[in-house]
C-alpha cells in the first residue's frame, strides 16, 4: 500500500489510528504489528510469510547469541545469522543478476529463477541483521518477546522504504513510549509536508522524467533538464517518504532517525553522504566500514574499506551493474576528496556547490539508467555526443511547463524556507500568525494532495524497488 494513496490515507490510516488509540498501552504493539502485517499483505500477500520467517530467524539468532557462553560461539552464531540473512537477500534480490552474469561470462544458458523482488526486503533484512549484530555487540538487549521484535521489524511507517531504524534506537520506545499532543503535532506537520513533497513535487518531476525517456526529440538541453529533474525527483520522492515515515512514527510515539538533511547544499561529496540517506550511510559505517577497520588502518587497507563499503552501497540499491558503478563512482570521488580535494574545496568559494551538484546529477543519471548502455548514452547526450542537437522543441516546451515546479523544488531543497519560518516564529506576532495559519496551510496541502490523487494515477515510490 502506498502512503500517497486514497486507500492508505482515508481508509487504512483512520482505522489504525482509531484502533491504536482506543486499546490500552500493552496491546498497542499488537495493533501496530497486525496493522503492519495487513499493510504489507496489501501489496505482497505471498511475501508476508517470508517477512515473518525473517523476523523469527532474527528472534532465534538473537536468543542464541545471547545464550552462547563463549565469545567464539557467539561469533559463530553471528556468522551463521549474517550468512542466512545475506543469503535470503541474495536469493530474492540478486539470484538472477548472478545467473545472468554467469551466463554472459561462460556462454552457458542457466535458466533465470525469475524471483519477484519482495517489497522492502532490503530494508527489513538490514534491520533484522542489525538487531542480531547489536545483541552480539551488547549494544542492545535481546528481545524475548517475539511480537515486540516483529513490531520493530514490520512497523508499517518505515517498513518498505526506510529510514532503516536500528533496534537499539527504538528498543526502549517499543516497551515504553510516550504519546503526546506535542509529538503528534510534530508528526502531523512532518507527514503533511512529506505527502506534499511526494505528490505535488516528486510526481510532477517524475512525469517529466518519463516524458523525456519516451521522447523522440532529445537534445543536450533535454538531457540536462531530465538529469536535473531526476536529481530533484529522487530527493523529493525519497525524502518525502522518509518525512511521512518519521511523522507517522511520532504520532505513534516513536522517534526514527532522520534520513535527509538538505543534501544538495553540501560543499563536498563527503558532506553529501552525511546528509543523504543517512540511515543507510550510518548502517554501512557501523556494520561494515568500522568492522573492516575504518580509517584506523594502513592507507591501502583504508582505501579498500571505502571501496568495499561503496561497492555494497551501490549493490544494495539494485541487482544491476549501473548501481554497482554508481556506488564505485562515489567510492572514487570520496577517495579523491579524502586524499586531495577536501582542502582545495574548502577554499573554492561557490565552486564547491557547483562541483557537488555536477557530480550528484551525473551520479543520478547512472542510478536511474536501465543499464550501463543507457547510462553512457544519457551522459554522452548531456555533452552532445552522437550529434544530438543542442536544443529541441520538446526541451523548451517541457522546461517552460515545469519551470515553476523546478523552482519550487530547487528552493525547497535548501533550508531557506525553514529558516524564514524559524525567523517568523521567533517574533511574538509572527508566531501568533503561524499558529493561526499552520492548520489552514496543512489542511490546504492535504486537500491539494487529495485532489492530485483523485485525479491522477502516476504515483510510484522509487525506493520501493530497493
Amino acid at each position, binding site marked *: *500500500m502506498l502512503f500517497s*494513496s*486514497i*486507500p492508505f490515507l*482515508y*481508509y487504512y*490510516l*483512520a482505522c489504525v*489510528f482509531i484502533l491504536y488509540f482506543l486499546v490500552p498501552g500493552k496491546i498497542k504493539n499488537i495493533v501496530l504489528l497486525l496493522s503492519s502485517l495487513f499493510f504489507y499483505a*496489501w*501489496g505482497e*500477500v*505471498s511475501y508476508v510469510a517470508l517477512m515473518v520467517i525473517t523476523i523469527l530467524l532474527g528472534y532465534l539468532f538473537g536468543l542464541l547469541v545471547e545464550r552462547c557462553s563463549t565469545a567464539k560461539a557467539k561469533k559463530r552464531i553471528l556468522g551463521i545469522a549474517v550468512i542466512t540473512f545475506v543469503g535470503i537477500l541474495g536469493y530474492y534480490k540478486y539470484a538472477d543478476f548472478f545467473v545472468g552474469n554467469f551466463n554472459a561470462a561462460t556462454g552457458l544458458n542457466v535458466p533465470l529463477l525469475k524471483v519477484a523482488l519482495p517489497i522492502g526486503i532490503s530494508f527489513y533484512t538490514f534491520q533484522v541483521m542489525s538487531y542480531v549484530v547489536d545483541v552480539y555487540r551488547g549494544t542492545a538487549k535481546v528481545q524475548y518477546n517475539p511480537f515486540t521484535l516483529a513490531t520493530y521489524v514490520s512497523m508499517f511507517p518505515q517498513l518498505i522504504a526506510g529510514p532503516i531504524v536500528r533496534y537499539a534506537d527504538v528498543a526502549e520506545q517499543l516497551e515504553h513510549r510516550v504519546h*503526546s*499532543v*506535542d509529538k*503528534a*503535532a*510534530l508528526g*502531523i*506537520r512532518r507527514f503533511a509536508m512529506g505527502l506534499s513533497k511526494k505528490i*505535488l513535487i516528486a510526481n*510532477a518531476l517524475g512525469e517529466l522524467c518519463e516524458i523525456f525517456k519516451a521522447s*523522440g*526529440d532529445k537534445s543536450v538541453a533535454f538531457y540536462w533538464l531530465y538529469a536535473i529533474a531526476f536529481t530533484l525527483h529522487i530527493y523529493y520522492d525519497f525524502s518525502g517518504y522518509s518525512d511521512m515515515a518519521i511523522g507517522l512514527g511520532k504520532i505513534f510515539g516513536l522517534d526514527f532517525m532522520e534520513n535527509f538533511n538538505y543534501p544538495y547544499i553540501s560543499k563536498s561529496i563527503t558532506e553529501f553522504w552525511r546528509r543523504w540517506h543517512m540511515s543507510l550511510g550510518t548502517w554501512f559505517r557501523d556494520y561494515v566500514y568500522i568492522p573492516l577497520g575504518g580509517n584506523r588502518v594502513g592507507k591501502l587497507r583504508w582505501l579498500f574499506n571505502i571501496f568495499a563499503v561503496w561497492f555494497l552501497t551501490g549493490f544494495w540499491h539494485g541487482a544491476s551493474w549501473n548501481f554497482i558503478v554508481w556506488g564505485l563512482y562515489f567510492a572514487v570521488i570520496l577517495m579523491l576528496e579524502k586524499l586531495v580535494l577536501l582542502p582545495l574545496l574548502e577554499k573554492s568559494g561557490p565552486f564547491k556547490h557547483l562541483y557537488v551538484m555536477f557530480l550528484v546529477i551525473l551520479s543520478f543519471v547512472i542510478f536511474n539508467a536501465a543499464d550501463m548502455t543507457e547510462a553512457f548514452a544519457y551522459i554522452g547526450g548531456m555533452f552532445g555526443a552522437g550529434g544530438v542537437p543542442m536544443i529541441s*522543441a*520538446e526541451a523548451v*516546451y517541457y522546461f*517552460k*511547463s*515545469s*519551470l*515553476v*515546479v523546478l523552482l*519550487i523544488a530547487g528552493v525547497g531543497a535548501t533550508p531557506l524556507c525553514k529558516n524564514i519560518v524559524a525567523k517568523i516564529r521567533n517574533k511574538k506576532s509572527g508566531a501568533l500568525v503561524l*499558529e493561526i495559519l*499552520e*492548520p489552514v496551510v*496543512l*489542511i490546504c496541502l*492535504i*486537500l*491539494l494532495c*487529495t*485532489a*492530485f*490523487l*483523485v*485525479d*491522477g494515477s502516476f504515483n510510484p515510490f522509487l525506493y520501493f524497488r530497493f
Partner: protein
Amino acid sequence: MKKSNLILVSIMAVFFFGMSFFCWFKGVDEYSDSERRVLAKFPKLTEGTVLSGTFMKEFETYTLDQFPFRDEFRSIKAIAQLGLFRQKANNDLYMADGYVAKVEYPLNDYMLENAGKKFQYLYDTYMANTDVKLYFSVVPDKHYFLASDNGYLSMDYEKFFARMQEETDYMQYIDIADVLSIEDYYRTDTHWRQECLLGADGVANKIAEAMGNTLTWEYEQMTASQPFYGVYVGQSALPLEPDTLTYLTNDMLKACTIISYDTGKPVEKEIYELEELDGRDPYEMFLAGSDALLVIDNPNATTDKELVVFRDSFASSLLPLLIESYQKVTVIDIRYISSGMLGDFIKFDNQDVLFIYSTLVLNSSTSFK
C-alpha cells in the same frame, strides 16, 4: 503541552476523520456525468482476488472513483496544475483563446500507416474493380489552430496531411484545413459547429464541389435550449461556461429516413435525435451519435447518386449538409463494425465514396476494426 499544538492536532483530527468517515459512509455513485463513464463498484472479496492482488487494485480504483466531491477535487487539481504550478497542460488538455484543446503530439507514423493499410484493405476488398469515385479528407483538430500561437508542442500537421495523401493516393484528396478556423469549433468539445460548415467558403461546400455537387438547400437554424457541456468539460475538470448547440434543418431533411443497423437489426432513427440534447453527450444528436452503420434515404435528392461515407463523429454534423445531392447515403464507422463484414451490408458499384476522418482518430487508429 503547547496550546497551539493541541489546536493543530484537534483541527487536523476533525478534518482527517471527517474526510475518512465521509469516504466510508458515502453512497455509491453509478455514473460520472463529467467523464461519461461508469464508476467502479466495490470489488469482489474472495480468496482468489485477494491472493492475486486483484482486490487491492480494484479497491484503489473504487476509492478513487467513489471519492466524495470527486469532480470538485478534480477541478482543484486542474486549477492548481494550470494556475499554481503554471504547467502548460493538465492531462494533456489546455485552455487557449477561450477554447479547450488536447495536445495532439507527437505524430504517430505507425498509426498513420495503420490507417492507410486499413483504407487500402477496404479499397482492395470492396472497391478495386468497381466504378466508385473515391474521396478522402482529413479534419484538423483544434490543436492545429491553437498550438503554435500559444506555445504548445505541435506535430507537423502538413507532414501529417501529406503522409495520409501518400497512403491514400488512389483517392482524390479534399483539403479542408484552409477553410476552417478555430471559431468553427465548440469551445468545450472536440467537434466542429455544424452552422459554421455551411456557406460559400464552408467545409460542406468545398467537399460537395470537389465531389461534383452543388449545394442549394436552405436551412433553418435551430438552437438547443439546453446548455452544451462538451466532452472536454469533464475531461479537463475546469470550470467552463457551456457552449450553445445549433443545428440546421429543413423539410427535406425531415423527410429523410434513417435506419441504423447498429444492433444488427434495422432501427429507424432521426437525422437529429433531439432527445440526445438531454443526454450525456448532446453532440450525439447528430445522426444518432456513433452508430456503426446507418442508411439514409432522401426522397428529395437533387440527383440519383449514392454516397458511402467512412467516417468518425465529425461527419455526423457534416453529412446532413451533403445529403441533398444523394438519394441514398450509407454511413460506416469502422471503429464499431468489422471491415471484413461490410460485404454483408453493402455492394460497392458506382457510388461516391468519401473517407473523412479527424486527425485525432487517424493519429490513434488502433480502434479501426
